[in-house]
């Protein structure tokens, strides 16, 4: 594979500054609604705030890759005497938990860094975090070219994992027949 220049987009998360407002969840879901901002539902957000006020746990987590199986074991962190729940730091949309799945279809969600935004604009969750708990950073790096999965493909992959390829193909065939008919 050839080397290409790639823009690395990252978000620095300063959990000490988080006030627990969940505006990031709300705006992410609104931005990804179709048409844009026509609805919102934090459950559809690609960032989730793990929030346990009485334990002072405030942890914004971004949805990463879809995982078809859960890990062999689970992890639990204790930092500065604060215990975080199992898998708290994991970004996967995984069978072991509800996070990062569309509430109706169960399809996995993944943070796309708001790729639909005009260049130069910061991701919505960052814009909307007025407490500066989320800081956007960008840099360029040389990396190997990769095949990028589209949203549809990621979704399909998870369906395939769940129902098997044959069943999905049959369903698509049936659906396209009835749409045409």
């Amino acid at each position, binding site marked *: 594979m050839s080397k290409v220049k790639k823009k690395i987009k990252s978000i620095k998360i300063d959990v000490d500054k988080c006030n627990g407002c969940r505006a990031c969840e709300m705006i992410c879901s609104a931005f990804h609604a179709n048409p844009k901002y026509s609805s919102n539902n934090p459950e559809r957000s690609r960032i989730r705030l793990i929030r346990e*006020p009485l334990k002072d746990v405030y942890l914004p987590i971004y949805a990463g890759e879809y995982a078809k199986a859960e890990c062999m074991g689970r992890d639990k962190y204790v930092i500065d005497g604060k215990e975080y729940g199992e898998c708290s730091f994991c970004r996967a949309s995984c069978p072991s938990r509800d996070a990062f799945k569309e509430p109706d279809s169960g399809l996995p969600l993944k943070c796309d860094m708001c790729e639909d935004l005009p260049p130069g604009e910061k991701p919505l969750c960052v814009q909307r975090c007025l407490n500066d708990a989320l800081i956007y950073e960008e840099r360029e790096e040389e990396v190997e070219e990769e095949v990028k999965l589209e949203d549809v493909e990621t979704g399909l992959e998870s369906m395939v994992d769940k129902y098997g390829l044959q069943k999905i193909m049959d369903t698509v065939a049936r659906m396209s027949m009835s749409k045409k008919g």
Partner: protein
Amino acid sequence: MRYAETGFNLEIDLSRGNIERVETDPKLTELHLGGLGTNAKILWDRVPPETEPFSPDNLLIFGAGLLCGTPAPGANRTIVTTYSPQTLLMAYSMMGGFWAPELKYAGYDKVIIRGKSPRLVYLWINNDKVEIRDASHLQGKGAVETQEMIRQELKEPKAQVTAIGLAGENRVYFASIEQGRSSASRGGIGAVMGDKGLKAIAVRGTKDIQIARPDEWMKLVNEVIQYIKFREKNLIPGVIPILARLGSPQEMAIHDEEWHTTNFMWGNARQRRRDFWTKEVEQQWRETQESVRTRLISCYNCPLKCGATISAPGISTYMMKCFSKLTYTMAAYSDLDFGFKIAGRATEYGVDGYSTPQVMAFALELYENGILTDEDMPGMPSDTEGRFYWLLDRIVRREGIGDVLANGTYWAAQQIGKGAEAYAHNNIKKQEQLPLKLGMLNPVYFLMYSTGEKINITQIEGQFPQAPFPTKEEREAFVKDWFQVPDERFKQYFLDWELRGENSNPYYPTVEATCEIVDWQERMHYIDDALGMCAGLSSFHLKPPYHIHNFPALISSATGIDMDEAGLSQAAKRNRTLIRAVNIRRGMRRADEKPPEDHWKKRFPELEAKLLDAYYAFKGWDHQGIPTKASLHELDLDYVAEDLEQRGIIKNE
């Protein structure tokens, strides 16, 4: 499709164990918006005025505001409405936090509770699945503790839970309903919840909230956010710290308590300590605050941080909001450390942070003056702080004298007699008020205190400075970017208002100007309370991000309802008048509309009568404060007029 609202209410009959999901009439949203407005409509329609607060027929309505759950920052209020056991009038306390948006995401605008459960239960609303569950294992548990226990037993860490503590279960007249970092505390609504045998309501929702015209809407919301940023950077000069910046008073963030501690009264709203705030006190209080405060926190979808997590040694962690930090401290002549600690216990018990300290200070005054004796207070410790804990424990359990005190200062004084009435001196309409005693009558505040239906000054005031600025230059600077005024003439009222001389309190603002200023202030609160907007970003503040000029377009683009400034003002007036009618039907009259006798040293009976007359007329009410037939007609409230006429309250001329 319904926009901003869900279009459904949950009707729960606890006597019969019945649960219904009922579609609401969109026409009512046009007329009353939502939240407080539609709550009041339901109370008027369905609960006859003869109904006792502790009757199964009384309703307890949890209403999410119209904009709750939408991207509008600060739209997160739950408005709880019922008949108050304390004032016997309509109570409408509100809470911020996360509960109202969650309810909307679950697919409901309101939860309406009627009947009484024979045993203690809680309600579990999980989208379309709603159950009444046994709560006998939660009996006597703290309000904070209960929320956590329910989340755990449901295995739903994201459920938002609102709960009562022991005080609500025992029907203490100033029991609160607690929820995370917030509470609906005024008017004893927690007692009504306890009377219904309802310990808590847990909600989890994963549905969408729709917006009618998304592009237009987001543009407006973004303007609001930009202005919040601007206001946070540009504090208003010349006013006290809590008014200089947005938020429900930033009590958890600020250390400078000079204003409250030297202007508000200590004890049973008795003594002003002008020299209290010294360098040493400031140092000590700063240390206390920083050592117990873990984090500053907000409500749903709000960039501000009005609450804090408090972890003080020896007590369980809780979340505190605004002013309860000082009420216990000042009532007991103690310090901040005591304040934080007793407030922790009080939050678990679930009691109002305004009334409770005053009730206890009142009891101690009665004791010091021989009206209550050792016989009434067997085993009470000798130090004030110990006595406060002792009293608190007895009040929430209704033990001994606690049973009497649990009804608040007004009713306790009636029961105790022997001149105790004189000590219940800081009430309006039977409810304890902020401990504030001042010199010269302020006409604007006179009207707000007297006629406010919420019976709580912080829920009426805002927009207009509380006092004149000393110099012309300061006043001119203030009005320069004051675009929130409904009309340019409000600027002139402020410019002409002076500390001394002809244009000063009590004769300036003039009677007419006073009416207009009060009307503006309360109008903005009525709009907020219908939308579920936090007053800390809106009506409570000088120069807030939400105002009469941007609200109509916000409402219209979110809901699809046509709305302009006149229409919005009319809706607010309709709600305000309907609530007045509810209270009039329950017997409230002009004689009840007065501030505490000693609120101001200098009173002006003639002027006060004139102010009331003028304000009543301005509002379309008669000499008794009863809405006239004509004004009700103009507000599409003919059915109210008819009812009042049938009852002989409006005389048929």
